[in-house]
């Protein structure tokens, strides 16, 4: 008997794709170069006075990093984001798992989150501002309303769709209700729950930026709004570039973490 390792065949690989020129990294680099040059040319041409070239934007980016204004703004933005995400993660997973385990809780709670997931909840921001003022609380709550629905619904579905045979297995080996939840249902659900957390974090980023643009300009939102108003577009673009790169890197790290923690089959393959 030998170990059977699962090899995933790469779909329709041509001989060209296998050459080093067309390696994924090369092609990615190539497309990045094309996009940046297109940005540069469009900015130099210029297609719009409000469209600075790539190089100017990067220069502004490094200037703002070096004088400390960008890192400072990022820290300010991170405050409502991280608090909001921590609250959403704990509350969201808790509610979702509860609804997955308890039919009554699901009946009572899930319609709210199902509607919330398809609804444009950003429109609630003005109401949050009325209720909680223009301070930190409103911004935290904005992050929460954007991030929570997907976290809750993923947790609910993950728990609800635990393979029936695993549950029967637990029961037939005489697990108590708690053992079944802790040793079978939650481990089986955790990959999907974690995927929900990743989506929730992405939504939280959207929320925090909206909050900083709509409620009061602080942090990155302040740099964007201020430079927009005085037509310093390089700085504005640099700040947007920075927050997008930051969030993409953050989400990528979460994806890595997910692969390491929950996908033994992927871990073995790579």
């Amino acid at each position, binding site marked *: 008997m030998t170990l059977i390792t699962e090899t995933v065949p790469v779909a329709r690989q041509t001989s060209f794709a296998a050459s080093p020129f067309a390696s*994924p990294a090369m092609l990615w680099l190539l497309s990045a170069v094309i996009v940046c040059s297109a940005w540069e040319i469009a900015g130099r041409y210029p297609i719009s006075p409000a469209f600075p070239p790539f190089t100017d934007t990067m220069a502004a980016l490094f200037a703002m990093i070096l004088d400390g204004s960008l890192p400072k703004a990022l820290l300010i933005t991170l405050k409502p984001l991280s608090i909001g995400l921590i609250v959403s993660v704990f509350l969201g997973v808790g509610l979702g798992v509860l609804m997955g385990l308890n039919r009554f809780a699901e*009946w009572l709670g899930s319609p709210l989150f199902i509607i919330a997931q398809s609804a444009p909840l950003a429109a609630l921001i003005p109401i949050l501002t009325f209720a909680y003022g223009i301070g930190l609380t409103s911004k935290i709550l904005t992050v929460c309303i954007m991030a929570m629905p997907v976290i809750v619904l993923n947790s609910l579905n993950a728990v609800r769709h635990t393979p029936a045979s695993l549950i029967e297995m637990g029961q037939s080996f005489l697990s108590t209700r708690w053992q079944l939840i802790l040793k079978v249902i939650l481990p089986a659900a955790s990959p999907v729950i974690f995927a929900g957390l990743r989506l929730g974090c992405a939504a939280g980023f959207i929320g925090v930026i909206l909050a900083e643009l709509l409620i009061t300009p602080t942090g990155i939102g302040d740099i964007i709004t201020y430079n927009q108003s005085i037509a310093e577009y390089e700085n504005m673009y640099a700040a947007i570039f920075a927050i997008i790169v930051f969030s993409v890197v953050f989400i990528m790290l979460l994806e890595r973490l997910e692969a390491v923690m929950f996908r033994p089959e992927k871990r073995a393959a790579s």
Partner: protein
Amino acid sequence: MYIGKFRLPIMSSLLIWAALWEIAGRTGASFIIPPLSRIFARIIEIVPTPAFGDALWITGKAFILGNIIAICIGVPLGVLMGRSVIADRIFLPWVNMFLSSPLSALVPVIMVIFGAGQTTIVLTVVLFAIWIVVLDARAGVRNITPSLVEMARSFGANRFQAFSKIFVWAALPEILAGVRLGMIRAVKGVVIGQLLVSIVGFGRLFEIYSSRFLMEHFWALLFVLFAFAFAINEALAWLERRFEYFAASRN
């Protein structure tokens, strides 16, 4: 959820929440939460007004135009990525990046280039909707069973026939799923765009209502919007289920 033998409908718990809301509103604890009955009365009052009609028309136009652009670019790009390794490697990192990046940060960019108007909102809709359309069309094409492609080839289908008679149909369940998810994102995009631009469509109404503290009007508008979003989602989900039968028979 059962009470005895009687099965409660899925969304029936909303009635309980509505009752709680009504009670909370009646106590007058906060001007932010007016009684639900008054909000519904306000919906009936607002919806026939020309201001609402104009806003709906402008918003609907931006939503539909944005979605058409997103589908017309997104589906072919996704099919291309599903068929060509090179195209896939060039575009996939960007698609994945934009799919999970905070697109709300890009709205100010669109705004400074295209001005605070309808164009910006249409482009915001495209920006929100397109990535998931691309990704699902790609997944649909990649999921086609190789034997189906070989079948077409063995019966002598040419490239165009293979594309129009096999690929598009075989990938249709995923493409539709992508369109539905894209539209949900588009609803969010159109509202976020209008909130940020705030002089067009519902964004303008939101601005007027909130600056005059008309909470009943504000909630009425929100409810109408949420109902639209929910209805669009359900209608597309129903359409998707009609095509599910061959998605299930495929794997």
